[in-house]
């Protein structure tokens, strides 16, 4: 019985190109891309308890890498998208290694600092990235085997949908896997996880890398969707926006952030038409959610269905004993 809503939504998404006008299909494609991006961040924020304030780095890295391989070598679109995701994941390993040297709030500061470094690089490395103009005219290259179908609006939509569904399936397995459950243990109580014998730092680096892979995948899809890659894709504002999507949608779930992305784009569309201070409203909504509704919209939906969401029950703040020096 409980599988019905999910199956229905997938059926509707599959049928969307026949029912929706072109501009709405484009909007829906963007929702799916941002939903994937938000879901990838939630692997860190919601599941591992790592507050990354620089997740735009994954998005931008994926977008630039995919754009470059298509522009320079005309790599087929699906392969270029995967290359973008892979590049982002490869960069994530050393960056994650460094960011997890510090714990807690320092981690958050470092993620922002490194994302801004990537932004500065994209801005200054004119010959490779096109500087402030970015890379324009990113194509949807044909192939493999000369398949040009992805270049069309519905074709590209299906490619994005496929990527999203596959990513969701993987992430679902990931958060239930031995390592995925360990990440939740680390979120709840890192000291205890260490005392049980888990190498918390190595687990966090894996989480960071996986999150960057899917964030990179989203970015690699965005560049051919929009036709460009610019430094804005690495900017802190985007890191903030995707964090808003995660928190408003519901951290600690996979569906919540996707819902958050949809709500975000809807609000942006309608509120920015009504008022030029929509970003202010967005910030206020965000604060209200963090303080008053930490389980997010999806948590609210689920609260009606089952037992109360436990996000309000925060882990006990460790006593200020000076004795938890981690190596």
């Amino acid at each position, binding site marked *: 019985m409980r599988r019905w809503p999910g199956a229905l939504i997938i059926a509707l998404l599959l049928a969307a190109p026949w029912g929706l006008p072109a501009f709405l299909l484009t909007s829906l494609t963007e929702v799916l891309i941002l939903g994937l991006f938000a879901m990838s961040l939630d692997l860190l924020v919601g599941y591992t308890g790592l507050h990354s304030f620089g997740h735009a780095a994954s998005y931008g890295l994926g977008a630039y890498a995919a754009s470059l391989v298509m522009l320079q070598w005309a790599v087929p679109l699906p392969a270029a998208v995967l290359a973008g995701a892979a590049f982002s994941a490869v960069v994530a390993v050393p960056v994650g290694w460094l960011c997890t040297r510090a714990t807690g709030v320092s981690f958050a500061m470092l993620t922002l600092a490194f994302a801004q470094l990537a932004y500065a690089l994209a801005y200054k490395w004119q010959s490779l990235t096109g500087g402030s103009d970015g890379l324009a005219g990113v194509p949807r290259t044909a192939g493999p085997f000369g398949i040009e179908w992805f270049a069309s609006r519905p074709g590209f939509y299906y490619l994005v949908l496929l990527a999203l569904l596959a990513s969701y399936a993987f992430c679902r397995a990931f958060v239930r*896997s031995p390592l995925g*459950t360990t990440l939740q243990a680390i979120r709840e109580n890192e000291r*205890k996880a260490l005392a049980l014998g888990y190498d918390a730092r190595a687990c966090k680096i894996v989480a960071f890398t996986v999150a960057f892979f899917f964030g990179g995948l989203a970015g690699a899809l965005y560049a051919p969707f929009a036709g460009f890659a610019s430094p804005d894709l690495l900017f802190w504002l985007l890191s903030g926006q995707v964090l808003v999507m995660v928190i408003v949608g519901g951290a600690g779930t996979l569906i919540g952030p996707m819902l958050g992305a949809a709500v975000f784009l809807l609000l942006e569309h309608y509120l920015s038409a009504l008022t030029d201070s929509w970003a202010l409203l967005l910030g206020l909504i965000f604060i209200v959610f963090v303080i008053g509704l930490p389980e997010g919209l999806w948590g609210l939906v689920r609260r009606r269905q089952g037992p109360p969401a436990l996000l309000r029950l925060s882990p006990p703040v460790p006593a200020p004993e000076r004795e938890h020096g981690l190596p």
Partner: protein
Amino acid sequence: MGYLECRELSRHFGALAAVDRVSMRVERGEIRAVIGPNGAGKSTLFNLITGFLRPTGGDVTFEGERLTGLPPHLVCQRGIARTFQLTALFPRLTALENVRLAAQARRSGRWSIAGGGALRADTGRTAEHWLERVGLGPVAAVPAGLLSHGDQRLLEVAMALAQTPAVLLLDEPTQGLSVEETARTVGILRELLAAEQLTVLLVEHDMEVVFSLARQITVLHQGRVIADGPPGVVKDDPAVQAAYLGGLT
């Protein structure tokens, strides 16, 4: 050489020697209690053995191999499990998942990033077993953070046991419990320790608990060992009475 052994172990915080050249041996199968007044260095000693603190001097060995300087998770991988003085759990996960994570921690499949169904089922059975053994079977599906304090203390014990440890370090297992809860916990611990033939190092404030569980006692005072031996001997030691038992009355 002892099974678990501390040799001249020290930890200084600035000028303060929290643990001062402590030597102690725990033999295989022994149940040893570490007692001492507040601030005697008991918890610091635990943190030194389990790698949560680096000693400023001395060594910890287990089965003849040095543990000194290893990070906590590697100490644990050698088979040394611990509980915490302040209850440490995964509050938003169910009691069963808490114990299951403990059972999973030393299995090689713990690194899988997908699948792991067989490991989950297997560790789930182990977890159910230990929950039953400490009497928490009925609350297996309750998030740990919502359990009563007494149940939380027992859950920590179940987690430590699910790690199949060679040595179990219990840091004040009856801390903050009512008289009835203490009696229940001690009963469960006695039964478990007798059945499992575990090597146990126990920090405890409650003397009744200590005398009903431990066969050997090490007394710490101001970071130093002032007495060591079976309960009867330690009880009558004049230095202990002066420093500790006398101080209580």
